[in-house]
């Protein structure tokens, strides 16, 4: 159940995806990064020809580029000089940077010197590729800025110095503002340059060329640190103390593994340094983090920076815990029945949705569930991790959708409301319990609490059910559509709660005319009153019925409130005349079913919502049938 190990295995299982750029619908790109590589937004692209001469350059619009990186450069910050091995900022890669007025923080340590030494070592190593050698040949000449100026990419001021920021005063002398000044680079010297080498034989761009990735990986591999026991795999391999950040997105500083004991009580006591406490191999750290980043981009869901991730080890899609049946149907490419025949066993619909993922339940197919979040900017925590067989996971998911289920009508599909049966999406549960304006913080907290209910079959926390119940009992506080949604979700939660009781009561959507439960009967009465009054009101009259308006106090004092409701029904009964006979009769029939002494003022239990929903549905269905005949 080691999460790092499973991430590492996921990487190994998807080696064919390494370096492949995939575009998301939102036009954002993501890649399964090769080891020792990262991504950066490039601002300028410089192309070198086969003789190691400058060919052309162009300004890019913030293009994400896959670049090689060392441990040091990946975590460089502040004034530290730590060049990337190949593509880097102008201040690192231009040999004539100082000549054109570039500022160097420490004259002892010129960034270009360090950069070109590193590049030389790589270019002269047995792992070097032709393209790399051309780039090195060119950069060694130290004339990048000169060439970029000649190519009119960057501009010099009257003292032949680099213009760091564009000022309107230059416009008069130098003409239009060149695009590089609006490319996103804060200053010209921090513009990120990527190099390409053009040759007809191998048209692949340098940053997409697998030969280039492999070249750097092989070169860097022999420069790695000491061997140590890896706590994830148990093998002895070159280890690392630096771990990836930018896990959730490019601006994310939080790390999953970090070592810091100059502040904070962490490992101190038994160990003197973090190295004594633990070791992890460079390869495992890189691959596990890269796989995680890739998975988050591919199928993670982020709510207020909290990441919810479900993935399988067999590359087949797995349903998410936070989806409802409609989502699942859509993801598995199945048709949704618009108006399902509601009285046949509902479980079919759920079964069919999940069956889509069951197709090839190969041996050892497994599912991982991971939730990540950070409390502070620097550190990230695994809030939840679970590893289980796919079959068990799907069974649990099916169980959840069968037990925490009701009939819902709030989902829209092609501009039409559809009715579906199953468990509501966790996000919708949050809105039902805390209102549609619930902050993302609350939503993410609830989602994390619901996951164990789904995956481990735990009971839904009472506070969530109570909260949804109370909101559903108070329809006047919200708009109609919102109340309807809250009502069906509350019913789903209540149903699950009752199933979990020791006696295990099962309540279903179709009306139970046998039940003598007083709350259920009261709920039914309320529904009949609602339907009766609604029927008497014209189509244009959209105001709430008395039954709905008194719902909240009805739940508290049913006996007394019912008198009020019944009294206010009389004008409508009169208006409808004989049309109301059926419903009036029904009220008497339901009232008849009360056991002695049950018709009192004790607050209603949650069952009354079920009775209300089922009775109302039954009446409307009957009406439809009547009109059809």
């Amino acid at each position: 159940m080691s999460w790092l190990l499973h991430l590492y295995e996921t990487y190994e299982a998807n080696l064919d995806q390494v370096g492949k750029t995939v575009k998301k619908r939102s036009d954002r790109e993501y890649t399964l990064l090769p080891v020792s590589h990262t991504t950066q937004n490039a601002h300028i692209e410089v192309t070198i020809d086969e003789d190691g001469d400058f060919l052309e350059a162009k300004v890019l619009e913030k293009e994400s580029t896959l670049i090689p990186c060392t441990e040091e450069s990946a975590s460089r910050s502040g004034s530290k000089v730590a060049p990337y091995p190949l593509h880097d900022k102008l201040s690192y890669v231009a040999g004539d940077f100082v000549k054109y007025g570039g500022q160097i923080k420490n004259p002892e340590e010129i960034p270009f010197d360090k950069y070109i030494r590193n590049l030389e070592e790589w270019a002269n190593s047995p792992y070097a590729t032709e393209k790399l050698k051309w780039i090195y040949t060119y950069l060694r000449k130290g004339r990048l800025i000169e060439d970029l100026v000649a190519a009119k990419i960057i501009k010099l001021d009257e003292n032949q110095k680099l213009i760091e920021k564009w000022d309107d005063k230059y416009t008069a002398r130098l003409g239009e503002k060149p695009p590089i000044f609006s490319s996103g680079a804060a200053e010209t010297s921090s513009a990120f340059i990527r190099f390409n080498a053009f040759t007809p034989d191998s048209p692949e761009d340098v940053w997409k060329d697998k030969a280039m990735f492999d070249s750097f990986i092989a070169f860097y591999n022999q420069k790695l640190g000491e061997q140590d026991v890896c706590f994830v795999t148990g093998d002895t391999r070159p280890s690392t103390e630096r771990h990836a950040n930018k896990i959730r997105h490019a601006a994310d500083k939080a790390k999953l593994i970090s070592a810091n004991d100059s502040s904070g009580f962490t490992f101190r006591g038994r160990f003197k340094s973090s190295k004594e406490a633990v070791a992890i191999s460079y390869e495992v750290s890189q691959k596990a983090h890269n796989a995680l980043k890739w998975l988050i981009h591919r199928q993670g869901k982020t709510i207020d920076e909290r990441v919810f991730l479900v993935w399988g080890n067999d590359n087949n899609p797995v349903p998410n815990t936070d989806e409802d049946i409609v989502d699942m149907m859509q993801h598995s490419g199945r048709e949704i029945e618009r108006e399902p025949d509601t009285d046949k066993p509902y479980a079919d619909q759920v079964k069919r949705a999940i069956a889509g993922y069951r197709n090839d339940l190969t041996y050892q197919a497994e599912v991982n569930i991971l939730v990540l979040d950070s409390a502070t900017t620097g550190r990230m925590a695994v809030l939840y991790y679970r590893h289980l067989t796919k079959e068990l996971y799907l069974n649990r998911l099916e169980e959840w959708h069968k037990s925490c289920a009701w009939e819902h009508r709030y989902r829209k599909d092609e501009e039409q409301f559809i009715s579906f049966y199953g468990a509501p999406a966790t996000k919708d549960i949050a809105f039902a319990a805390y209102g549609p304006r619930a902050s993302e913080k609350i939503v993410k907290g609830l989602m994390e609490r619901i996951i164990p209910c789904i995956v481990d079959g735990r009971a839904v926390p009472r506070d969530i059910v109570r909260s949804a119940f109370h909101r559903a009992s108070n329809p006047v506080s919200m708009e109609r559509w919102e109340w309807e949604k809250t009502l069906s979700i509350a019913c789903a939660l209540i149903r699950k709660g009752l199933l979990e009781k020791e006696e295990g009561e099962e309540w279903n959507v179709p009306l139970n005319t046998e039940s003598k439960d007083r709350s259920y009967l009261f709920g039914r009465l309320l529904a009949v009153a609602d339907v009766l009054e609604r029927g008497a009101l014209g189509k244009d009259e959209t105001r709430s019925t008395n039954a709905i308006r008194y719902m909240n106090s009805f739940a508290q004092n049913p006996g007394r409130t019912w008198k009020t409701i019944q009294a206010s029904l009389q004008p409508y009964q009169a208006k409808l005349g004989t049309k109301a006979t059926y419903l009036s009769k029904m009220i008497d029939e339901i009232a008849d079913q009360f056991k002695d002494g049950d018709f009192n003022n004790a607050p209603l239990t949650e069952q009354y919502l079920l009775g209300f929903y089922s009775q109302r549905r039954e009446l409307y269905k009957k009406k439809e049938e009547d009109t059809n005949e």
Partner: protein
Amino acid sequence: MRNEVQFEVFGDYALFTDPLTKIGGEKLSYSVPTYQAIKGILESIYWKPTIMYIIDELRVMNPIQMESKGVRPMDYGGGNTLANYTYLKDVHYQVKAHFVFNEHRPDLAFDRNEGKHYSILQRSLKAGGRRDIFLGTRECQGYVQPCEFGSGEGFYDTDERTQYLGTMVHGFNYPDETGVNELSVRLWPVEMKQGYIEFPKPAECTIVRSVREMKPKLFHSDDIESAEQLLRDLGGE
């Protein structure tokens, strides 16, 4: 031999911190306790320097579940910081273990009385242990009681598959128990079969990583007082 002990240990939460998340990150529990954690629990029940515990087997009774909590750990610089720690929830284990005499304490050879230690251990266990029991970390209170190892129903009883739980820390080799002036950490690949985890003996662990040199603390006869002496001092018979 009368040196075996069987007991169950349970609690609402447990945090057997994965060392990777301990050195500066946010603590996350291993999915099952380490050998060393169980040894610590046993030593809380009853321990004397004369004896050394060997943990034989562990049985995981409840499903492995996690729950995170927001905590406010102390900061060296003063005050607190914010963190999310992830605990195991609702844990229940059965343990089978035994004790042996610590051969590296020849000064305590006079105390090597198997029956005595066995009886005290059983009595201590019945009383719930001599010291506080905690599951991995101090904030996770645990409870122990005697039980027959393997009795009762466990969650993983019917799980036919062998679950590989990854490489985990087994425990530490302390100089006073190994006779080697070195602190080292043992790792092992953990497998769980129907909830049972059989621990290899410390000497059988193949992955051993040296941490640093360490000398055992030395004791002299002036440092320790025998029970007989104490009894005499107190004026007993």
